[in-house]
């Protein structure tokens, strides 16, 4: 009875939200977040763009050089073209795309299990992403230690795969694969959880309908029912995977220092740190930053194009 009364009132008197189409209090509520966002995200990004057109050594006032930094980056930065860019592409493809596909398959598999085993498995798969580089440096140093006391060397030697210990963290052949494995290991992050939730919340009646309509195995079910329903979650996970793939430079710095031996595991993020905080060529580092932000933007656009429905009528 009382519920009806409220409903009636709502019909009679237009509510405050609707009445005040431009409620100034909105600004008040957004202001604290917006202020911090502006100071520590927006302004730094704009500053990076401006600095990228200057020559700045952190001591003297920056001098305007136009596109020189970008031209140098493309035409004469041999380290960037020979090592950093190819490494970053390989890393991003394997950890970004590979990790994304892996996390979807795992999420899908987990959703076919009852709640308890699913929760336990999800927790185990998610926990590496909580370690974010720093906490686990010692772990990788022990596993990939270069003498025979290293865990991996010891295992491989006892299995007879190798006879002499491999100096994993100096050998340029192994550095990038090691960094990639660690990246993959810790890639089941929040996007992975989002995909699990997306699959779990898909409309159950559709599965029954599809079974009647001739979908007769789980793979078809996944392609035709599950994925179309969870595209928004897939997109969120894709954005997270892309950011993760380009952001992660800490691992190689912590394991091998910056720059890594022979630039073998040098990623674009390491290149920025190298120029910005070791050579103090801030303008140049800013140009690399802008390129990085653009690449991330480009990849996210591509994911957006792939995963949002435009062809619907």
């Amino acid at each position, binding site marked *: 009875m009382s519920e009806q009364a409220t409903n009636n009132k709502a019909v009679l008197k237009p509510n*405050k939200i609707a009445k005040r189409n431009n409620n100034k209090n909105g600004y008040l509520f957004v202001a604290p977040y917006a202020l911090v966002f502006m100071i520590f*995200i927006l302004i730094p990004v704009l500053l990076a763009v401006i600095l990228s057109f200057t020559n700045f050594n952190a001591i003297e006032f920056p001098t305007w050089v136009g596109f020189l930094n970008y031209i140098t980056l493309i035409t004469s930065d041999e380290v960037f073209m020979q090592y950093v860019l190819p490494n970053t592409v390989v890393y991003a493809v394997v950890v970004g795309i590979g990790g994304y596909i892996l996390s979807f398959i795992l999420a899908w598999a987990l959703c076919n299990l009852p709640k308890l085993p699913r929760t336990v498995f999800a927790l185990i798969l998610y*926990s590496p992403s909580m370690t974010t580089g*720093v906490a686990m440096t010692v772990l990788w140093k*022990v*596993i990939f230690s270069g003498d025979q006391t*290293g865990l991996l060397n010891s295992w491989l030697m006892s299995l007879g795969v190798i006879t002499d210990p491999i100096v994993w963290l100096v050998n340029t052949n192994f550095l990038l694969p090691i960094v990639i494995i660690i990246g993959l290991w810790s890639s089941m992050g929040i996007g992975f959880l989002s995909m699990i939730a997306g699959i779990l919340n898909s409309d159950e009646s559709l599965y029954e309908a599809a*079974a009647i309509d001739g979908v007769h195995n789980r793979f078809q079910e996944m392609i035709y029912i599950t994925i179309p329903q969870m595209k928004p979650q897939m997109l969120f996970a894709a954005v997270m995977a892309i950011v993760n793939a380009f952001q992660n430079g800490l691992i190689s710095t912590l394991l091998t220092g910056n720059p890594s031996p022979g630039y073998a595991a040098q990623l674009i993020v390491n290149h920025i740190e190298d120029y910005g905080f070791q050579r103090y060529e801030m303008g140049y580092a800013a140009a690399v930053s802008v390129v990085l932000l653009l690449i991330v933007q480009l990849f996210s656009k591509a994911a957006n194009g792939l995963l949002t429905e435009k062809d619907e009528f």
Partner: protein
Amino acid sequence: MAYKGKRINPDKFEVGQLKIIAIILPLVIFMALPIIFIANHAFKPMDELFAFPPTFFVKKPTLENFTKLVKFSRTSGVPLSRYIFNSTIVTVLTVGLSLFFTTCAAFALSKIKFKGRNMMIQINQLALMFVATAVLIPRYLVICNLGLIDNTLAHVLPLVAYPVALFLVKQFVEQVPDSLIEAAYMDGATDFQVYRKIIIPMIKPAIATAAILVFQQVWTNMETSNYYINDDSMKTLTFYMNSLVNANNTVSGQGMAAAASLILFVPNLVLFIILQNSVMNTMANSGIK
């Protein structure tokens, strides 16, 4: 047997699930191994750390590494308790501020109408792709100019605005029924009362999720200690643990470092286990439309 469909989220165990378990179990074990190893390593006594061939599991667990960790910090001038204190303060401040700012903004962006709202939502959506390491240098300049070098706030403020957290909380606030909010306005509630009495109690899962995400960002963050703080006694636990790892790359140092890693990792894990239900609840609304 006809295919029935609807196998997602089964209620009980079926034989068919064994296939799936058989496929993912090796991977799950592979993912878990490093963490199991570090947990074992941290409790190994000296002779097991030195053991050859190296062992994976601890045989005679001891707290030696943890006590050494405390002792070692005494010799380095700044006691361990100082770093723990710093990290706690920084984490509590960041998570607290971030949650307050984020929920306020999420409420306004999804339930209050004002000019520029859609643009703000778009900007935040774009900022999901923000790569913090890319703006390390300009951020440093900003912090310099604000005079925040060697200030606790330099640890806190850069991490307060986290676009992913705002996005998730905003998605969740949108699920709060408008009729409820309208009824409150009808009874004469102010915007702040609506935020306080209706929105906050209804979005607890999203708040828990945002708390975990921000916690993970700040608890293991080393950037702020590395670049914005010069005074060693102002730095955080993560920084100290890391310098410990680098300074003691000997076998005896490894035990200490493993203990340190465990100390850093466990709060994350415990928090996630406690809040995992809320997290999954929130992630259901995480889609970008």
